[in-house]
């Protein structure tokens, strides 16, 4: 493998004809994720890849394209759309599916839509429960999936750190942290009975920094919302919320102001806090991340809405 030519002249680095420089540990993480994906393709009847449009999903999809090359991934993508995603996310989603020529399914909980469920009037907990957790269960029932990939990483959140790569869910989609299957060596117990399923997390051992570094080195497209730009935001309880469309009701005296912000994590726009940033390129994002002293999920409202929040959601079937 060619190594990059590197020289130092006058104290600055110069690079010519740079070939790939995935560090040996990133190559190892990549190979392990590919192994996990192939294992699922071989062992499950009807797998699906949950695609949430964010950076982790972008890496997941990129890895899937690699794992089954020269073929396409032998499973569809599924986006569970809460109808409250940023508009740029939806545009990006459709463009990616088209670019890669893969089968993208979108599922919306129509009952929730009919009942007018929204994060604004019903609160983040109920909205997430109905439009994400319930919707996901509906999709499983409708299509009969027996395994679903997700982009969760163990460094994200305490309860994720305890979860297995192959995470078993019973017929009601519940996660039981007390009865997880042990994972030794690279041996996955992929057995499920009809109605039961597996959530599979190929990025378990990746960190946020690994994800961004990999995106940079592999040139993976991501939603522009990750880059800093002047955007209309309002400040609520110390969180910067972007006014993405007319559905966000402004309180008295509240007025959207243009601030240079970006997102470290993407979810439903009224539930996702922006950070003020000058980072407009991947290197700047990575640099900001290295300097950052805040953990990634701080910007997520749903993690903090109850004590032991995420663990509780997962037990109920949240991804």
């Amino acid at each position: 493998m060619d190594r990059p030519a590197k020289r130092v002249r006058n104290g600055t680095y110069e690079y010519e004809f740079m070939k790939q420089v995935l560090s040996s540990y990133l190559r190892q993480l990549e190979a392990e994720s590919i192994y996990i994906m192939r294992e699922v393709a071989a062992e499950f009847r009807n797998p699906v890849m949950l695609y949430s449009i964010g950076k982790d999903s972008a890496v997941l999809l990129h890895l899937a394209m690699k794992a089954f090359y020269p073929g396409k991934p032998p499973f569809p993508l599924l986006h569970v759309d809460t109808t409250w995603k940023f508009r740029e996310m939806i545009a990006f989603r459709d463009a990616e599916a088209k670019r890669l020529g893969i089968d993208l399914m979108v599922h919306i909980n129509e009952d929730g839509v009919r009942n007018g469920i929204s994060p604004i009037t019903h609160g983040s907990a109920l909205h997430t429960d109905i439009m994400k957790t319930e919707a996901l269960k509906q999709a499983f029932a409708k299509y009969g999936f027996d395994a679903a990939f997700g982009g969760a990483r163990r460094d994200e959140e305490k309860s994720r750190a305890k979860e297995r790569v192959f995470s078993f869910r019973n017929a009601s989609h519940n996660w039981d942290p007390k009865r997880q299957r042990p994972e030794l060596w690279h041996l996955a117990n992929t057995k499920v009975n009809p109605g039961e399923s597996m959530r599979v997390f190929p990025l378990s051992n990746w960190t946020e920094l690994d994800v961004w570094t990999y995106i940079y080195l592999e040139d993976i497209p991501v939603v522009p919302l990750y880059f800093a730009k002047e955007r209309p935001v309002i400040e609520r309880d110390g969180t910067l919320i972007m006014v993405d469309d007319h559905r966000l009701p402004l309180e008295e005296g509240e007025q959207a102001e243009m601030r240079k912000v970006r997102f470290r994590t993407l979810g439903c726009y009224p539930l996702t806090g922006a950070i003020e940033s000058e980072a407009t390129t991947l290197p700047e994002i990575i640099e900001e991340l290295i300097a950052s002293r805040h953990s990634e999920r701080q910007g997520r409202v749903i993690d903090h809405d109850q004590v032991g929040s995420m663990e509780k959601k997962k037990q109920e079937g949240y991804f």
Partner: protein
Amino acid sequence: MARLSVVEGTNDSASERLAARLVADEDRGLLRFLTCGSVDDGKSTLIGRLLYDSQLVFEDQLKNVERESKRPNSTRGTEIDLSLLVDGLQAEREQGITIDVAYRYFSTPRRKFIVADTPGHVQYTRNMATGASNCDFGVLLIDARQGVLTQTRRHACILSLLGIKKVALAVNKMDLIDFDQERFDEISEDFVTFAVPLGFDSITPIPVSALKGDNVTMPSAHMHWYHGPTLLGHLETVDVGRKSVEGPFRFPVQWVNRPHLDFRGVSGTVACGRIKPGEEVVIHPSGKRVHVARIVTADGDLDEAQDGDAITLTFAEEVDASRGEIVTTPEAAPSVADQLAAKIIWFDEEEMLPGRSYTIRCGTQTATATVSALKYKLNVDNLDHVAGKTLEMNEVGLCNLSMTKPLMFDPYGDNPETGSFILIDRFTNATVAAGMIEFGLRRATNVKWQELFVDKGARAGLKGQKPCVLWFTGLSGSGKSTIANTLEKRLHALGRHTYMLDGDNVRHGLNKDLGFTDADRVENIRRVAEAARLFVDAGLIVMVSFISPFRSERRMAREMVGEGEFIEIFVDTPLDVCEARDPKGLYRKARAGLIQNFTGIDSSYEEPENPELDLRTSESTPELLAERVLEELRRRNVV
């Protein structure tokens, strides 16, 4: 291949800085290690210190810790309690969740680390083994005031058992013994002497204070007598170079890649050694010899692939290979056997039962396996051999296993990737055990199957009947034998050749050495099922009247005979009815505590899920029920 977007002349400074970092990163490897030691040895503080000193603690996490450190029950006064950073485990304890392996991540400019933080008590042996199975290095903590304890020895034994070759002995709390060199030397000496038979390649003792930070990431100012590396320094440089790159080539076929007619490849991860295009390889078990045409990846074809690479191979010759097969070089074939000796760590709450069959997963192979014998149990505190009949949760033993088909493997000591397996319960799908293969037993290949010219069909044809097993299962006193006897008379009258295997009668002869523990019950059924199979082979209609309380063994009996030859008849009588009948007075004795392990009283009965026949005795008479069985036999053309 990806390209760095940085070119000469760019003045984007973040890009330049990143590029410089990535170039420096290029050789940065990954070390997976586990930390072990008893709860009070300061493990959480040590990990907290590593995370804190390598600046991997975020401000919001630190704030939480600072706040918690100020609580009245905190032991550290005004200092930050670093152990709280590792609070996942604390949370688990509070919630009463089984203490689990937790993975943590940190990195330095030299290496990236994945730490498996494992619990120490004997009741968590399985969790520690799980952590160790994914690691290359172990950090064993010792409290300098306590020295080498039983737990220290146990952890060293488990590390050795899982094949970890290098360990660091972190002698912690040196600050509490005035950084005493003599004490440190004494502890190191003690441990090294104990560990000689465990076969570690290297043991590196390091005196540390996780609380004060001495020799964790920074050299200590208090121990000038110590000239070795800091713990982090050692972790950054220790060579755990797996021999597997130099070892024999192993490529377990994971997935067949056939996107269109013009491409046919096999995907998988190299489990050992290296391979180049053009080399000759053998696909096992078929033994077909072919040549590697291409090593395909999405980043372009490779000139060489090695241990750990996820690749797709194509062959120059037309050949079919499928999941579960193994590609090797011709000179280094894997071992093949349908009987193995292996060390097994038992995970399940329900004990291991010799004779019960489980699903075995070994690499990408899947088969059905039975533990045929437990040779001995291992005392994990010193690896002594102990006699035993079963393994309970967290126990380790050397077992013989027999498989329904031959497995391809390497001894675990040669290659953990191809020498390890898990056992899965066939009903609950729980992972019940993990195993490490020692060697194959050649018995199966030595005992040649006697070629028989008069076969089952010929023998049954002589009698004009179709042989089968009628398996009557139900509680004691449910009426199994009564119905079976009635049926046998009817069949005999019809000129059919039958035989009856009755629970009580068999226990007087063939099975008189067996008691009523779960393990003995399993063996009881195994022998009867084998006997029934021989009778079926002889062309007979065999009636088995046994309580046979466990689904697994009934399934085993079913699988011993041909498709359609096993008819499971559930003699469905509620417990209270059986107890009221109590024809042999056994329930009364069991209730009085005179009989132990009595099915329905203090031993469970697992009802059949899909029996061929469900006979409710409370709604009918034995004669009518026997007639129903006869109808079923007519329907199946047995008679």
